[in-house]
């Protein structure tokens, strides 16, 4: 094996070339196979992908921006257990600016950003992580977007500056794509996704965190075909977000059989039955977790026994809550109730109304029943 991740210095491209040379051919091809499977391309594309990566005269330059987020997507990106994949990722990309993993700091870091933008104008890939706060903090000199300031610029200014000259913009994680947790009610900082903030269309790879296989597959697609993959109406690549979790879930057979976990830890849970009644949002969530899985194919929530919470969907903290109920509650002024509570009340009211009127009709039966009248007379 070549070098380990920590040995990379982002200033010496030669070292990266060495590292690619140090990777076993076998590992490299299995990476290409994973990419072609993820992109839905089939085995005949494996050599083509290998060729595209090897022949790429220039590795695409990547500028990775952090906005309001937890760095979970960077963690996902660099923290893969299989060293060959980690190294490959860093070797097919030239990551010129990444606040978390770059060695430089301060002015040198700023210089690196400016240089990368200038050298690769119109050719680099901007990867955005995190939402952009648009609100104005309280205080005398505060201006719009001041909740997030990096090197004297607000997140919005930075995003606009970098995204304007990018060949492609990829939002990784739910925050950059749709705003994520900080954009949820009551959204104190006015956070929104990158596309909404800048008005520039972006490709979105949401998830909490996103799956690194998908973001790398987007790049491989870019290398192979020179274009971004086809997306759905929200801007998510169809190869990864074209199907619901529910449609290829490993517990689906138990859903169709009508076998449900009723309580965590019950016999059904031990038999890996379906988590529908535990509030699984798989039927409403488009993502390829069941096939790609997380952490180098180790596991993913439903496999581990917890329902899906819909982390690749817009505003999932608001929309998919409560996570352990299938449906949201209904909020009326002053009350919050489940759909069933409201429903039972309605049905009860209709039945009670009918019963009361029925009793009233019975008591007044003489008014309309001529036979009764005749008898009395």
């Amino acid at each position, binding site marked *: 094996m070549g070098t380990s991740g920590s040995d990379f210095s982002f200033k010496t491209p030669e070292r990266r070339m060495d590292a690619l040379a140090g990777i076993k051919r076998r590992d490299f091809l299995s990476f290409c196979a994973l990419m072609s499977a993820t992109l839905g391309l089939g085995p005949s594309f494996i050599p083509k992908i290998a060729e595209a990566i090897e022949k790429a005269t220039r590795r695409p330059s990547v500028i990775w921006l952090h906005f309001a987020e937890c760095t979970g997507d960077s963690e996902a990106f660099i923290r893969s257990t299989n060293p060959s994949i980690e190294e490959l990722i860093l070797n097919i990309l030239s990551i010129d600016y990444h606040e978390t993993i770059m060695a430089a700091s301060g002015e040198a870091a700023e210089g690196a950003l400016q240089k990368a933008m200038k050298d690769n104008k119109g050719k680099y890939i901007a990867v955005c992580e995190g939402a952009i706060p648009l609100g104005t903090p309280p205080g005398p000199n505060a201006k719009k977007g001041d909740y997030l300031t990096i090197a004297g610029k607000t997140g919005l200014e930075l995003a606009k500056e970098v995204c304007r000259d990018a060949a492609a913009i990829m939002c990784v994680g739910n925050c950059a794509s749709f705003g994520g947790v900080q954009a949820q009610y009551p959204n104190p900082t006015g956070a929104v996704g990158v596309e909404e903030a800048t008005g520039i269309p972006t490709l979105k790879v949401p998830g909490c965190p996103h799956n690194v296989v998908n973001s790398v597959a987007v790049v491989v697609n870019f290398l192979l075909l020179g274009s971004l993959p086809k997306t*759905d109406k929200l801007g998510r690549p*169809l190869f990864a977000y*074209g*199907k*619901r979790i*529910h*449609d290829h879930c490993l517990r689906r*057979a*138990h*859903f*169709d*059989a*009508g*076998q*449900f976990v009723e309580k965590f830890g019950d016999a059904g849970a031990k038999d890996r039955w379906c988590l*529908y*009644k535990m509030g699984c*949002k798989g*039927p*409403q969530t488009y993502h390829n977790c069941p096939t790609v899985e997380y952490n180098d194919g180790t596991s993913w929530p439903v496999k581990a026994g917890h329902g899906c919470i*819909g982390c690749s*969907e*817009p*505003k999932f903290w608001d*929309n*998919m809550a409560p996570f352990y109920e*299938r*449906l*949201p509650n*209904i909020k009326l002024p002053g009350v919050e109730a489940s*759909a*069933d509570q*409201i*429903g*039972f009340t*309605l*049905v009860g*009211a*209709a*039945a009670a*109304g*009918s019963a009361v*009127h*029925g009793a*009233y*009709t019975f008591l*007044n039966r003489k*008014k*309309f*029943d001529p036979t009764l009248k005749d008898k009395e007379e």
Partner: protein
Amino acid sequence: MAQIHISPQKKALVYTRNFTNRLIHWTTFFSVITLLITGYYIGEPTAVYGQGEAYNTFVMADIRYYHFIAAMVLDVSLMVWFYLAFFSMSHRYWRQMLPTPKNIKEAMEVKKSYFTFKKPKFYSHFDPFDGLLFLALILFMVMQMVTGFQLYVEGLPQNYWWAQIIHLATDWVEWVFGSHQNVRLVHHLMEWIMVSGIIVHIYLQVTKTIIWQDGHIGQMVGGYKYKDIK
């Protein structure tokens, strides 16, 4: 509306509901009952669970299948209903169902009759009070149809022509309600709203049949109803 027979109680039998009309009513009835029962199970699987191995047990799959079959039947019968409301050769009923001031005024009179027990004037198909109730029920069914299709299309391959037609026809629903989850919530809540509406509907028809002695329910079976003769 030929008068066929005069009974000793001075009532004439009047032909009010033709065959198509009755057929649509009962198709809608049976499909809605099926949808209510299967929909309840889909929303809250209870009582019946798959026994045995999952590879040859299909409780939920079958129930969803019946839900979809009944849904298609309901959709077709609703479409025929709408067509006939405007273009029927014998009775174009749409005017009777609109909440116009005239209809509302007459509906209030009919409502009063349920408390005073003075028989309102004879209406051939349905009275204006029922007209407004039916308008609500029809709108509920249309709502179930559009939200149901929006749920249905989620599971179809995205670039399949049939899915694309459904997307074209119902994607606005998600926009109106804000998210997939809310579409589901509306579809679920509507089940209870429909049950309430159906309780009121059945109660009123039974009550009317008893207090006016005009064979009101019978008209939905045989097509005839009694009319008082002065």
